[in-house]
């Protein structure tokens, strides 16, 4: 097991190196000057800026320097935010996104498993049909509509009852997280609901369920011990990368609810061609993703001992 895990970690590191390299090349290949702004600058000023950020060196040298610093855990200084270290950006904003994301994932996983199991139990009956329509509505309408509607609902509740029921936007307390995390988790919840339903239906007719039923096990025991455990594999597969994606921030939700998460940096950095922030956020996300995926592989073995990875 140890040797296996070490192998995985090694392959993960290689993946991260590839991610860093591909992103580095891509961002230099994209037209546009990271040092250029709406107001034109003289060539002299541009040259000095290039020197400051090390962009005057040949690209191979830049790459080597960058990798060297990255290995030492230094992502450099942001191009667009005055003197701000990319490490600080990640350190300041990742915990915010992570807190929100964990809550969102919890909602999504609990809701998805629950609704999914429910739809499978009541297949083609009213609960199944209702939930399916909600799921379809949910995935057919863009997420910012739900973010905006959620916020509008809060404003109206606060106005009607003339209380500060939940904050409309902002960050700081648990109350700030509730609605944004729901909105953030809804997409995953919808997907998990459908996955859970489909995989539950596959399990229901398996031999071991029939055996368990014949053996006289109570329906609840069959449900929890046999059906749920066997049906949950796709949910785990999806959850791994989703955790990495959601806890590194959702741009739309952060924008609408004024949350200081990491998500906005992913988008802004590319728009502004802020090289160091692009690299920092991408490598961070890549590492996180690879870690989660490896973790999922290990968890497979616990859920279903038949799964062998070698």
């Amino acid at each position: 097991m140890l040797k296996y895990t070490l192998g995985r970690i090694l392959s993960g590191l290689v993946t991260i190196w590839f991610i860093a390299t591909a992103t580095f090349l891509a961002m230099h290949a994209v037209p546009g000057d990271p040092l250029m702004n709406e107001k034109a600058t003289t060539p002299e000023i541009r040259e000095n800026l290039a020197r400051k950020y090390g962009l005057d060196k040949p690209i191979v040298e830049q790459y080597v320097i960058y990798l060297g610093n990255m290995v030492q855990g230094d992502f450099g200084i942001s191009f667009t935010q005055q003197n701000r270290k990319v490490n600080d950006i990640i350190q300041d904003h990742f915990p915010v996104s992570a807190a929100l994301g964990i809550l969102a994932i919890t909602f999504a996983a609990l809701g998805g498993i629950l609704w999914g199991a429910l739809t499978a139990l009541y297949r083609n009956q009213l609960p199944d049909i209702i939930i399916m329509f909600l799921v379809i509505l949910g995935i057919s309408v863009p997420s910012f509509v739900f973010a905006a509607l959620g916020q509008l609902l809060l404003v109206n509740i606060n106005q009607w009852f003339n209380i500060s029921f939940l904050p409309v936007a902002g960050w700081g307390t648990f109350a700030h997280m509730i609605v944004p995390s729901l909105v953030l988790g809804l997409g995953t919840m919808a997907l998990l609901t459908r996955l859970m339903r489909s995989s539950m239906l596959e399990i229901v007719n398996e031999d071991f369920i029939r055996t368990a039923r014949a053996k006289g096990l109570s329906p609840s025991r069959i449900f929890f011990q046999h059906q749920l455990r066997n049906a949950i594999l796709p949910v785990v597969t999806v959850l791994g990368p989703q955790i990495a994606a959601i806890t590194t921030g959702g741009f739309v939700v952060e924008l609408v609810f004024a949350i200081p998460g990491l998500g906005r940096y992913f988008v802004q950095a590319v728009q502004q061609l802020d090289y160091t922030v692009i690299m920092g956020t991408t490598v961070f996300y890549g590492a996180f993703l690879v870690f989660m995926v490896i973790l999922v592989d290990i968890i497979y073995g616990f859920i279903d001992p038949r799964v062998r990875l070698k």
Partner: protein
Amino acid sequence: MIPHPALQADDFTPELSTDSLEQLSRPSLSYWQDAWIRLKKNTRAIISLYLIIGLALFTILGPFLWTKDPSAQDLDQISQAPALPKTALLVSDYLPWTPPVDQGHPAEPTGYPDTLDAVTGFAIVGTPNTQSIRLTWSPVQDAGGYSIYRSESEPSGLQGLGLPLETIDAGNILGFEDRLNLKSQTYFYSIIPTDGLDEFDVVTTLKVTPVQSITMSQALERGLIDPSDAPGRSVSLAFHPFGTDYLGRDMLARLMQGARVSLFIGVVAPFIYVLFGVFYGGFAGYLGGKIDQFLMRFADFVVALPFLLFMILFKIGFGIGPGESGILPMLVALILLLWPSTARLVRGQVLKIREQGYIEAARLLGGRPSYLIARHIIPNTMGVILVTLTFAVPSAIFTEAFLSFIGMGVAPPTPSWGSMCNEGVKTMLSHPHELFFPALFISITVLAFNLLGDGLTEALDSKMRSRE
């Protein structure tokens, strides 16, 4: 001892041929034939089939039946909600109007007045129509200017005055012309005298209902009248059953044109990348070990790449010229970047399935990996695959909209449902129809594919037969 009955020669003649015993009572059916039969019996699948046919007709035949130009701008009917056809009064072309100035009245007050009287004589000049509404009033003693507001509901005192249209900073200018996006509805104009800087707390309100009008040149441009027609007659305006968008373009025509892009991208891209993901994940999961590791790390690599950055790069790489639509490059880009989630999901399922007894049995019987994957493993992961496929449809539609927004994908004025949604979201409270219709069509599409997916899952899963 019991004696054997003597065997006769005819005991050794063959029985009469009873072929009928050997015949199967039902025709032999392959897996897929069986699935097809059961699919046809599935109500959900049939409903979905009708929906898909309906969407196809809407997309293909629609533009022949509803021949409005989807990019024609009707600036007289901007953001019009769905309504019956309207008529408008034909008026002469707009001519600028100079508001009256009372030369006998000072422009600026001498000193700062403590109070000002409310404006009197607040009245309409000419006939108010949707081209312009002209207002005039009598000068107020000591006023240094006037502020004019417009509201769609009656203001109560100084509350709800509405839009601040104009701040006039001379006490002797006695007229104002409003042309700001006028509709044929009732407006309440309020005027407040100022000392040139601050507004005083006295307000005069006037109720105006302009008539819908169209100018000669606009009507000619849109072919609504003959050049010989004279102002004063009434003209039927273009009919927009689903309303219009923010530039007065016909929503129905745009939905039909947009369907081409959205359905193409929303159906073809997911189909291809899910298919690719299925085989990729299938092989990775089945082969396992080092190959699996390598393949899955590559999938992680693709997921971790910054999507936006690579889309910009693709746009350059494919050499899409300015203002050109790049549907095929977009398709390729979507496929290249979006397959890994399906691959990972299928691989997870395959890891479980390949350890099942029947796979082992098939392998022992000499099944080759490709046979095992195609014949045994993938059909057993069909449920999961179909779920991802149906989720990929709206995902592709919205990704298309996003890509079009950043200049990759379809170029304006070509619409797509996703970009219509994005535009509609911004005014979803004031003009809900601009969001509702594209969202409705996306929902119908997703519903159709979900139902089809459900139907297929049930039809393809042989074990489900027991429950029918």
